[in-house]
């Protein structure tokens, strides 16, 4: 078990700068999610930590030890791939035993640990099967068993659940989390699915265009995104633009959206409000301190079971409001509405 530290990592893929001075800490024993759009560098970072890519400058330390000159096979990592990468010519048992056989452990020890690993992923009876005889979910569990049986210092997961269908993915997320907690291994998990990152991670790092945009606990980042990109990448957000003033943001229609209590001293030009923080009403709500209300036109309601997303035109922008099923009854199908929220629920953004 070890922590991983990345310092000012810069990596070029041919002429392209894939990583630009990334500095990040992956704490020991934590489940860390690397999140970002395609091309953000998250997979590049993972592969650099694994040792498949060499950086042009910067440092990577695993357990305090700099690993520039340590080849992949000596870094004591475990890895899971999107396409499982199970050895097709070997049985499940042999696949899982591979890493232990490479380390030349005694046979009884190998058998014991393989048995334990397969029990851990609930595939104890599948030892003799071949990969092509397994379902996608089973293959992924074998891949997990194989990766952790060697007791690596770090577990690296490269979008391992992307190839699974939705229901299976959710099941595997739970399994993954359970096993990670049980084994206590430092885990770095790459995904482009923000929901997956939110549910699995102790910590999240958001990357875009090779740079680290924001890192922290999921709730923290969700509550206080640093900029527009993060606000709309992790969750959804509605934006208000205007001129900063002492009490709040002066909007185009002249009204003022008051700063949240926890506002930073620099006055920002943009405010973000989460769809679930807004209340929709037909009648104008009574004025209340630290309550914001603006007028809009309800255009569309998208029903999705327990909730519905209401799309309202507010000035120049389209607002998304998350409405509970029970509240839908009190709203018209379309027409003028009022959007209100607590000033404290707004988020000021620097850019």
């Amino acid at each position, binding site marked *: 078990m070890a922590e991983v530290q990345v310092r000012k990592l810069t990596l070029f893929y041919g002429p392209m700068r894939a990583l630009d001075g990334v500095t990040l800490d992956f704490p020991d024993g934590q489940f860390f999610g690397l999140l970002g759009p395609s091309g953000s560098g998250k997979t590049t970072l993972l592969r650099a930590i694994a040792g498949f890519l060499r950086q042009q400058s910067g440092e990577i330390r695993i357990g305090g030890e700099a690993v520039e000159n340590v080849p992949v096979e*000596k870094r004591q990592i475990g890895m899971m791939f999107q396409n499982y990468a199970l050895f097709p010519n070997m049985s499940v048992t042999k696949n899982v035993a591979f*890493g232990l056989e490479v380390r030349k452990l005694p046979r009884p020890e190998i058998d014991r640990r393989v048995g334990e690993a397969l029990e851990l992923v609930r595939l104890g009876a599948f030892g003799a099967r071949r990969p092509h005889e397994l379902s996608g979910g089973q293959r992924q569990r074998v891949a997990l068993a194989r990766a952790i049986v060697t007791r690596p210092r770090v577990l690296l997961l490269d979008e391992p659940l992307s190839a699974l269908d939705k229901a299976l993915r959710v099941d595997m997320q739970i399994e993954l989390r359970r096993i990670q907690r049980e084994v206590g291994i430092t885990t770095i998990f790459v995904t482009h699915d923000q929901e997956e990152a939110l549910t699995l991670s102790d910590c999240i790092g958001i990357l875009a265009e090779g740079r680290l945009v924001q890192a922290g606990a999921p709730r923290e980042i969700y509550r206080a995104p640093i900029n527009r990109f993060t606000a709309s990448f992790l969750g959804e957000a509605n934006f208000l633009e205007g001129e900063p003033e002492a009490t709040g943001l002066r909007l185009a229609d002249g009204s003022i959206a008051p700063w949240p209590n926890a506002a930073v001293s620099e006055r920002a030009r943009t405010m973000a409000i989460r769809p679930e923080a807004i209340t929709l009403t037909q009648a104008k709500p009574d004025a209340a301190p630290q309550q914001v209300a603006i007028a809009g036109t309800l255009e569309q309601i998208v029903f999705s079971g327990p909730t519905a997303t209401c799309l309202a035109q507010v000035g120049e922008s389209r607002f998304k409001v998350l409405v509970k099923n029970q509240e839908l009854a009190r709203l018209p199908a379309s027409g003028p509405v009022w959007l209100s929220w607590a000033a404290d629920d707004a988020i000021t953004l620097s850019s």
Partner: protein
Amino acid sequence: MTRSLSASGIAGRVYVGLVLFFLYAPILVMALMSFNASEFYALPFHFTLDWYRKLSGNEQILHAAIRSIGIAIATTILATIIGTMAAIALFRYDFPGKRALQAALFPPIAIPWLITGTSMLVFFFWVGIGRGTPAVLLGHVALALPYVIVVVGARLETFDIQLEEAARSLGASPWRVTWAVTLPWIASGVVAGALFAFAVSFDQFVVSYFLAQPGDATLPVMIYTSIRKGFTPEINAISTIIIVISMAVMLEASRRFRFGGER
């Protein structure tokens, strides 16, 4: 205006039949005559195994046959090892000059053997190897190499490089990775490549003719010089045997490697 399906089907079949006939008729006649008593291809046909019996007593032909097989086996081993290593390297790595190398590997297949033979002869004399069995071996390996690389390379195209990465992440050295993960997958390609290499070497006439020491000939060269001296049906017999062996090897190779296609 379309022709009826059955008419074009028949025309097509007749055409294929004619092509096969022109290809195989001389060979079939020759094979048949190896079992005929007459020395002069004269009919009526009397079945005999005499020529084959005479063959087993013919020291010259037998020595040449053993030399041919020996060289073919040595060529197969060398070309398969070198070719497989080259194919794996081309698959795994990017290096300066890779494109040029890939482009340079295949023209030799297209160059007429006459030209290859002459240029090799001149080159080997210039370098000091001269004629003889080492020269023949080198020549055969050079000729067989592109075939092995193509065949193994084709098999590698279906190989998922992440399997190698997975093995390395589990602690396997690059050598272990090749042995335990890559080779099992490409084994069928390696075998097909080896069979090609054997066929290329065993059947080789032109280059062997240039590079062999007179008197130390391989079988095809020996057959050629024998014919020039005077024809005996033992030639038919040994030729029939060579054809049967070569066809068996190529049929086995084509079972494992689809020309231009995927399995």
